[in-house]
């Protein structure tokens, strides 16, 4: 059997990966009444849509980078932290950022999809078939590559193309090795770290201490998603560092910079157009650059071979490493039903990166803006505005992701429905989760900025005034989701597969969460506490309208 056969098998197996990714049958989701053929087609279509979405983002990143490259002569006229950088240095800096973002996005994409790929169990299904070892390895490798194909192709084509269009064909061509390395390294990083996360997070035992470890891992797991934000914040400092280091001539710092990926490759484009003088490089600098580039290409080649060998091994390994038997004597501690739903969801999220992302993203986003506010303080109105923006973002993100928490019920859907759990308890548990995400995010911003923002009372009142609106929005979204589930008489999994509906119900939720925020900004001319009072009253009014709708659902006592 050759590559053609491996490709044919991987094509069939990939349909299974898509099916599990979308419909979660292996997680206990009920079979669909419409039949599997249609579901398989739909699953593949949805996965392609997701890939297109990531590919478009990466294409836009490349186009944005090219735009900055084209504008480099103007940008270079300003100083970064007092350092003037030349156009070639600026170009190298932008390309470094571009390649870093490519790695971050592809790595992050891999971290999102790898748990699903491993959970699909597709390699374990193929393994017993009469297929030779080499073909099995190829099937596994191809399956893994297919998770990234469209985004990777966009990175490989769009980045050199845009660079070539702006800086000339030679610059475009010399960018290719760097882009290839970026893609290969991202795929390898995703496999190594993804597997580690699956073991440390999904395979983690119960207990308080381990919960902290799990959430710490998950924070690290989400961080690449903030690459764009982090880079845009750090860019001026990075450019100043580049300018200073390269202008100073030969030094250990400069040699390290030249040897560090992706700067090694980013420097090649300005070198190809402006020569060694453009980056003030001597012979030793050029030698370091080329030796480092050659070494990275060798590592990339080795990484490809390693990937092709390892995907199969990783895909077949059990999710939890064997360990010593450990007996715990902890009690079973029941709570009220709504709190039980909240605790269950948080525990599931702590071992399911996809759901953890929904919890952590609003919190980390608020944290990032809060830190930015802290750095850019002190105590100006601008800082207060930024801090309020962080809380606003947290409110809107928590509201937007609310419907997705409903999809957690896909887990053990059939079993869950046999428990005497009232709709009201389920709704309250989910709303409590959204409210907790908002509360933690807002609290973090408050904690970080309290030293910089001189109006903590205003800030606290703003958080409190928006809180009822976040709860109202979440209640409305859940009420709409419940109504649909009842009307269709289908498992909730249908909502999960039909993500468009989850997004559709988030729109009225966002409107509810947004109205008090808009009111506050419209009332900017009035005294701030009057504006906050009106904002809070509007939010309470929304809550008064939404609560009966959600908690007074027809058949609310049915489970």
């Amino acid at each position, binding site marked *: 059997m050759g590559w053609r056969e491996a490709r044919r098998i991987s094509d069939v197996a990939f349909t299974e990966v898509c099916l599990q990714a979308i419909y979660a049958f292996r*997680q*206990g989701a009920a079979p669909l*009444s419409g039949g599997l053929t249609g579901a398989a087609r739909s699953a593949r279509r949805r996965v392609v849509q997701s890939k297109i979405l990531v590919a478009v983002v990466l294409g836009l990143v490349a186009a944005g980078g090219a735009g900055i490259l084209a504008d480099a002569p103007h940008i270079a006229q300003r100083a970064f932290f007092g350092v003037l950088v030349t156009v070639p240095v600026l170009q190298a800096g932008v390309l470094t950022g571009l390649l870093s973002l490519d790695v971050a996005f592809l790595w992050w994409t891999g971290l999102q999809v790898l748990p699903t790929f491993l*959970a699909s169990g597709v390699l374990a299904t193929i393994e017993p078939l009469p297929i030779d070892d080499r073909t099995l390895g190829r099937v596994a490798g191809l399956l893994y590559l297919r998770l990234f194909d469209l985004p990777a192709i966009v990175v490989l084509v769009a980045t050199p193309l845009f660079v070539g269009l702006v800086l000339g064909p030679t610059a475009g061509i010399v960018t290719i090795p760097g882009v290839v390395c970026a893609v290969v390294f991202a795929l390898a990083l995703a496999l190594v770290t993804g597997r580690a996360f699956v073991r440390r997070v*999904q*395979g*983690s*035992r*119960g*207990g308080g201490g381990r919960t902290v470890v799990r959430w710490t891992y998950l924070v690290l797991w989400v961080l690449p998603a903030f690459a764009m934000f982090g880079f845009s914040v750090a860019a001026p400092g990075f450019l100043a560092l580049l300018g200073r280091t390269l202008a100073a001539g030969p030094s250990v710092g400069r040699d390290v910079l030249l040897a560090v990926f992706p700067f090694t490759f980013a420097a090649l484009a300005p070198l190809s157009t402006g020569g060694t003088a453009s980056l003030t490089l001597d012979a030793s600098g050029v030698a370091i650059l080329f030796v480092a580039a050659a070494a990275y290409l060798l590592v990339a080649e080795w990484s490809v071979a390693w990937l092709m060998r390892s995907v199969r091994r990783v895909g077949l390994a*059990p*999710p*939890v490493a064997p360990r010593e*038997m*450990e*007996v*715990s*004597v*902890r*009690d*079973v*501690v*029941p*709570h*009220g*039903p709504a*709190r*039980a739903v909240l*605790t*269950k969801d948080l*525990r*599931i999220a*702590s*071992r*399911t990166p996809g759901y953890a992302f929904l919890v952590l993203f609003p919190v980390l986003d608020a944290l990032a803006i809060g830190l930015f506010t802290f750095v850019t303080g002190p105590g100006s109105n601008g800082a207060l505005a930024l801090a309020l923006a962080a809380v606003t973002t947290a409110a809107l993100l928590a509201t937007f992701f609310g419907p997705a928490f409903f999809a957690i019920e896909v*887990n*053990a*859907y*059939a*079993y869950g*429905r*046999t*428990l*005497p*759990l*009232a709709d009201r*308890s389920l709704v309250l548990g989910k709303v409590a989760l959204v409210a907790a995400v908002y509360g933690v995010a807002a609290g973090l911003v408050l904690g970080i900025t309290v030293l910089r923002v001189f109006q903590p009372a205003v800030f606290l009142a703003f958080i409190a005034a928006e809180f009822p609106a976040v709860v109202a929005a979440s209640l409305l979204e859940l009420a709409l989701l419940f109504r649909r589930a009842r009307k269709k*008489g289908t498992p909730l999994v249908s909502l999960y597969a039909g993500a468009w509906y989850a997004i559709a119900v988030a729109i009225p939720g966002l409107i509810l969460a947004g109205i008090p925020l808009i009111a506050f900004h419209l009332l900017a001319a009035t005294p701030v506490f009057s504006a906050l009072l009106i904002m809070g009253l509007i939010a309470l009014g929304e809550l008064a309208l939404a609560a009966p709708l959600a908690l007074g659902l027809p058949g609310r*006592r*049915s*489970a």
Partner: protein
Amino acid sequence: MGDDGAGALPLVIDDLSVVYGERRAVDHLSLTVHRGEIYGLLGSNGAGKSSTIKSIVGLVPPSTGRVRVFGLDVATEALRVKQRIGYVPEASMLYEALTPREFLEFVASVRGIPRLDASVRTNAFGAAFRLESELDEPIASLSMGTRQKVLILGAFLHQPPLLVLDEPLHSLDPRSVRIMKDLLARYVTDGDRGVLFSTHTMEIAQQLCHRVGILDHGVLRAEGSLSDLRERAARGDASLEEVFLSLTREDEGLDEAVRALEGA
């Protein structure tokens, strides 16, 4: 469960039909589980056992008929019915991302079981099934048999007056099967509780059940104690397996099928 109707039977199924599209999985089924009784639901693959059970626990709405648990209608009093049922599903579909202890905490919370009772029962079952070292492992990493034990533990956690068990013993090790058999036999001795369980394993049904019902293509072909069924099948000292095959006419062409396999 103090408000059980006085004298109400643990389970009354009256003229139940379950239809999926064109297919009739259960066809006008009526049966009763009495207090102090273990009722075995037997049938071949696709006979309608699981559909019947799913109707009892509220997973599948009946197309016709009614299901009542201690006098409560499943269709109109779902929550109260679910409080009275302990259920082990056919497939071990659990919250994969939880540990058994976390799962049991959720079940205990939803069912309102006091902490002491939940802990004592969890530890007792854990010890009996030798689950102690796996109570804090993620369910995703557990074997099929261990998952089945967790489901059984979840079903017994609130000591329900009605147990509804869909193939509860499959994938259990011999020790756990023995424990389950003894436990079920003792569970109904108080004369108030009832158990309905489906199985393919005739020996277990023969050992455990006070009465069995034989489902065939959604229709209840026969019902009664083993001696009743022997009488009905005119098989004086036959085993339950022989009676089952005879009543469902599954014994027709059996020898030919085996011979054809030998020659294949």
